């Protein structure tokens, strides 16, 4: 409390106020905490305090089998569980040389992109909520609900899928589900446009976002921002295109980058806008995949006692919150020797300390929302 006491000529002295934002604050997206020192509404510094959701997933990885670890990876980032599934399975496949069936790859991409839609909807919806617009949030969740229903049909779970397995996917996508996904996409694209008319083009919303918490490209690299946050700063970098994996090289899609068409390049609006545009790109990808979906088995033959040879690999995929990397070491036994999960939110969180100096309390909420940090992914 008494960190900075400014004695003034008048004998009138002021001191900074220390506020604890979180861990039960409404807009910290899970259990995050910031120790904020403010001068009235203006923040002197905001020190992130993470770890409230630490579930030691990396340690658990050393104690369960390779197959048994897949459901745990769901929990690393439960808003985008499919990607953690995929990256762990990719690592296991790379270590053991297990091939993935072609239909399996397409099923993976469909499921992942649906999951990306769901995750981005949560992101932009709660972002609206943080700024006070309640309706866009519920509209976004309404669409996500439909995606959850589709997921339920594809893999039987709504949030923690355990769908992607080593060698392919757990369950094949049925033709009637494909038809429903296509129907959903037809319905969803106009909804995104309506969402834009309701929220993204709103003058108050733009005023709140444009020019707020600008992240330059240099800062983004220094702090290793990834995914939409990096693209929002103007760097055209997408692992799906630049370090291709799965069947992404065969698909056509654009990589939206922040252009600063309303404020400055790298401001909160750019990061938000990249996510909105990625919604549309994901729709495009799913459409192509549905068209190209080949026949054949969804999963290749994998022994139940899965023992990849000793070795190590670092695999990354483009998750909704950016580069999700798994560094997996196998010592040839039934259990992974070491699993390291490197997530986008963790690095995004570390930049908040720097950016928060001198902004207003309301802008801190915008900053957190625009970085789309996700507590489970930070703490793992």
């Amino acid at each position, binding site marked *: 409390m008494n960190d900075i006491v400014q004695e003034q000529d008048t004998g009138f002295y002021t001191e900074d106020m220390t506020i604890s934002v979180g861990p039960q604050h409404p807009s910290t997206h899970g259990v995050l905490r910031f120790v904020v020192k403010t001068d009235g509404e203006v923040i002197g510094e905001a020190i992130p305090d993470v770890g409230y959701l630490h579930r030691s997933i990396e340690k658990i990885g050393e104690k369960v089998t390779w197959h048994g670890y897949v459901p745990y990876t769901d929990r690393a980032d439960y808003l985008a569980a499919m990607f953690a599934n995929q990256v762990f399975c990719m690592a296991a496949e790379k270590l053991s040389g297990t091939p993935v069936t072609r239909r399996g790859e397409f099923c993976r991409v469909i499921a992942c992109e649906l999951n990306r839609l769901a995750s981005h909807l949560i992101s932009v919806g709660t972002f609206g909520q943080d700024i006070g617009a309640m309706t866009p949030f519920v509209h976004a969740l309404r669409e996500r609900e439909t995606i959850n229903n589709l997921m339920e049909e594809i893999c039987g779970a709504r949030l923690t899928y*355990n769908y992607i397995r080593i060698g392919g996917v*757990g*369950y*094949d996508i049925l033709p009637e589900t494909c038809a429903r996904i296509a129907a959903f996409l037809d319905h969803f694209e106009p909804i995104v446009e309506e969402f834009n*008319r*309701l929220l993204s083009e709103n003058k108050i919303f733009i005023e709140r976002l444009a020019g707020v918490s600008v992240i330059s490209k240099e800062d983004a690299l220094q702090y290793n921002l990834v995914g939409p946050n990096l693209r929002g700063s103007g760097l055209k970098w997408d692992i799906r295109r630049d370090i291709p994996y799965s069947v992404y090289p065969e698909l056509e899609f654009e990589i939206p980058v922040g252009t600063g068409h309303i404020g400055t390049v790298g401001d909160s609006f750019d990061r938000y806008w990249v996510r909105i545009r990625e919604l549309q790109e994901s729709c495009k990808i799913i459409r192509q995949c549905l068209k190209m979906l080949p026949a054949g088995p969804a999963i290749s033959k994998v022994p139940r006692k899965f023992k990849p040879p000793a070795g190590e690999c670092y695999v990354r995929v483009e998750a909704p919150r950016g580069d999700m990397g798994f560094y997996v070491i196998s010592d040839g036994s039934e259990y992974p020797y070491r699993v390291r999960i490197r997530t986008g939110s963790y690095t995004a969180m570390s930049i908040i300390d720097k950016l928060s100096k001198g902004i207003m309390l309301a802008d801190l909420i915008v900053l957190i929302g625009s970085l789309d940090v996700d507590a489970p992914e930070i703490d793992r």
Partner: protein
Amino acid sequence: MGVVSYITDVRDTVKSVFEGLSITFSHLVRRPMTIQYPDKIPIPIQETLPRRYRGILEVDLDICTGCLACERVCPITCITIGIDMDKETKQRQFTHFDIDICKCMYCGLCSEVCPTGAIRHSQEFEGASYNPAGLVRHFAPEPSALYKPKKGGETDPTLVVKVDIGQKYLDEFATPDGGTVADEK
């Protein structure tokens, strides 16, 4: 602040507010999306769930062979099975078969490895209970014998039905084509 930008600001604000109001008003006359849970729909909500839905685990002990595959595969060890030898009949029997629903994370691995489809996910998802003990499901309250698959198909008519249900579940649920299950069967 120039006059032009002043006027554009006012115009943009009015325009976007007008647009937003028209969208929210249009939703006032559309149908709501949420459902009237749980008493205002004609059929139980469980029946609307897809067949693949992974709800609370159920076990049909009559067709369980006691191979312990599910116990071994469970990553969170929520299944505990006890098997011993019945002293009178000299047959192996279950002493207990418990599933801790508290711990279960509904990953579906156990139901995929089951050779007969005895352990499977039901559509039930409401697990509220007054104490944690109520969440431990005991499928073998008293010792019961293991199921032995007969060569050339099942003959007991009650068991035939159950075996068929299990097999149907396996076919529908656990990977229609190939997969981790197929290679060891």
